[in-house]
């Protein structure tokens, strides 16, 4: 989009910094229609699914009670009207009340559970980046060596073992097994409530390994193949022909190029981690958002489903924006179209 298409930005002076600022503002504005369509799609799918928030197993609510509940939460109105009411609320940052937890706001429920998920995801991400990239680089630089096969084997095993298997094995060995072996003096807790925003706590060890195995393997394999590709490039041969030390060839010429696609992949990986995993959170009794999202879907908690979806959509959009902005700094060939 040309600058002329946004006349209200015309007063901004031209230059590299303002080009970047305009780019960011424009992308933030684009998030509005994106979110609108995310809400439309979720709303339609949600109401297409059979059942409703008042269905119960076993003893059902009486029709009178259901009718009263529908009136209370506006579910008796036609769907288009419900939709408009909801959008009107979202514009005012009002995401409604949870249908399954009476009296609790959706935003309150989300803000209660998300910090646990975020802490787990962020810690996993911070450990995964150096580990995945390091394994990949070492494997590529020592291609076909024992180190390469070990790293690849580990990555393949981690990628092909389902996380519920990894989690259960960890519990068996690190919690139950060690408990028995040490006579109960040293073992890892099978779960429990981690403290939000504290990365250093023993409760996180097993869930971090379970959650991080697959993405670490993915990043390691991506780094390895990208680095192997770069090693074969002509400019790397040029670097050797100059008489550079091996360390400089690798740092300045190989990694500076081979890590560009890895950065692209790290964005979605981060989004994947901080949106939580139902399995990991259930396995380790973490009251996170991944678990609450699945519960609200099966419970047809319409407002919770929409609220959580909006949070995830915003997260993914923001992460992608950050990756795109980072690109400008790591790859000089990328130009922001103005």
């Amino acid at each position, binding site marked *: 989009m040309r600058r002329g298409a946004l006349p209200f930005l015309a007063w901004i002076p031209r230059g590299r910094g303002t080009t970047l600022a305009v780019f960011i503002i424009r992308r933030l504005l684009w998030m509005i229609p994106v979110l609108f369509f995310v809400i439309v799609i979720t709303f339609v799918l949600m109401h297409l699914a059979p059942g409703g928030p008042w269905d119960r197993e076993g003893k059902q609510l009486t029709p009178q009670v259901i009718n009263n509940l529908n009136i209370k939460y506006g579910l008796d109105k036609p769907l288009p009207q419900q939709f408009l009411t909801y959008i009107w609320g979202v514009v005012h940052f009002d995401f409604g009340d949870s249908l399954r937890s009476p009296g609790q706001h959706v935003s309150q429920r989300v803000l209660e559970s998300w910090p646990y998920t975020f802490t787990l995801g962020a810690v996993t991400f911070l450990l995964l980046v150096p580990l995945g990239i390091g394994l990949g680089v070492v494997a590529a630089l020592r291609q076909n060596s024992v180190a390469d096969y070990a790293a690849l084997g580990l990555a393949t095993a981690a990628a092909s073992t389902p996380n519920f298997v990894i989690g259960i094995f960890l519990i068996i060995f690190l919690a139950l097994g060690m408990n028995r072996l040490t006579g109960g003096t040293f073992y890892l807790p099978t779960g429990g409530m981690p403290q939000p925003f504290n990365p250093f706590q023993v409760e996180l060890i097993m869930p971090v390994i379970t959650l991080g195995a697959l993405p670490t393997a993915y990043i390691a394999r991506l780094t390895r193949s990208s680095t192997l590709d770069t090693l074969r*490039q*002509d*400019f790397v*041969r*040029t*670097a*050797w*022909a*100059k*008489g*550079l*030390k091996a360390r*400089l060839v690798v740092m*300045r*010429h190989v990694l*500076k*190029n081979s890590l*560009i696609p890895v950065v692209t992949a790290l964005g979605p990986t981060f989004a994947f981690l901080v949106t939580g995993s139902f399995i990991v959170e259930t396995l380790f009794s973490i009251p996170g958002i991944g678990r609450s999202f699945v519960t609200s879907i099966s419970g047809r908690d319409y407002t919770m489903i929409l609220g959580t979806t909006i949070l995830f959509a915003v997260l993914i959009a923001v992460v992608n924006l950050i990756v795109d902005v980072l690109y400008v700094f*790591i*790859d*000089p*060939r990328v130009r922001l179209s103005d």
Partner: protein
Amino acid sequence: MGQILLQVEDLHTQFFTSRGVVRAVDGVSLHIDAGETLGVVGESGCGKTITALSVLRLVPEPGRITSGKILFRGRDVTKMDDDEIRDFRGNDVAMIFQDPMTSLNPVTKIGFQIEEAMTAHKRFSAGLAKGRVVELLKRVRVPAAETRVKDYPHQFSGGMRQRAMIAMGLANEPALLIADEPTTALDVTVQAQIIQLMKQLNRELGTAMMLITHNMALVASLCQRVVVMYAGRVVEEGPVEQIFDSPQHPYTWSLLRSVPRVDEARKDRLVSIRGLPPDLVNSPAGCKFHPRCPFVVDRCKVEEPPLAEVAPDQVARCWVLMRNARQEDVDAAKTSALSVEAAQTLKAQAKVGGVAGS
């Protein structure tokens, strides 16, 4: 000319592939004197580039120098340890590559890539190196060198990138510059500029040059001596004028005849060499060129000829030699370049198009 700068003796470089051992360089000997420009010519895949990469010990996996000596000022490159070979590369011998579009790091500034070639060695201090970058870019005639040092490769055209590569090669004032097809990837007009530049630099700086090419015109305009390679071997070597006037190996003769000439009346056909270069895993017995040679005799098929002196300073690896070839064979070779049918088709097209045929 002067003293011998680089002497390659009986070099063998082989690639150990799953198909078998590829003898890419099979007993090559050549030498370059200080200040001299040597042309190395031959078709693709005849071992020119691998010979050059062997000199810098940059042969890619799974290739290895299996035997032979590479003496640079008396020191054997094949026996240098890691530190010695690192300091040798880019300092004593520099190399510029065929494709300037891919030979520069896309995410690093041009100026820094040249500066780095100097800071890798001790000839210029870090402070001096920075200042010299602009000077080098000016020397290779990059316009507005002061501002362009901060550019990235994608902001340079192909010709400008090759100039930057040359500047990088010259950064440490090496005694020998190896240029591997330096103009192949460039437009014809840009090629001429680069050739002109290399000629001037050779005159101004006295840097010896090893020019690897399949372009005979480039050899004629730049080189003093020429080495012709075929299937990993030297088949003919001598002073450029002598080779151009009286090539003795049929391969050299065919190479020269396959270059179109504007100044000569078009009485002869352009000769394309029949067939393809041999597979270097199972190369033919006897002379490697015999399956494609128009002057082949029985001896060629069983016994490989030695590299023998055929004229002062000129050696060739052939049992027949062009001066002994029968005139009717030569004429036949000239006309058989195109099959009769193909020639008639071409003629018919020329008539339809209203263009006067030969």
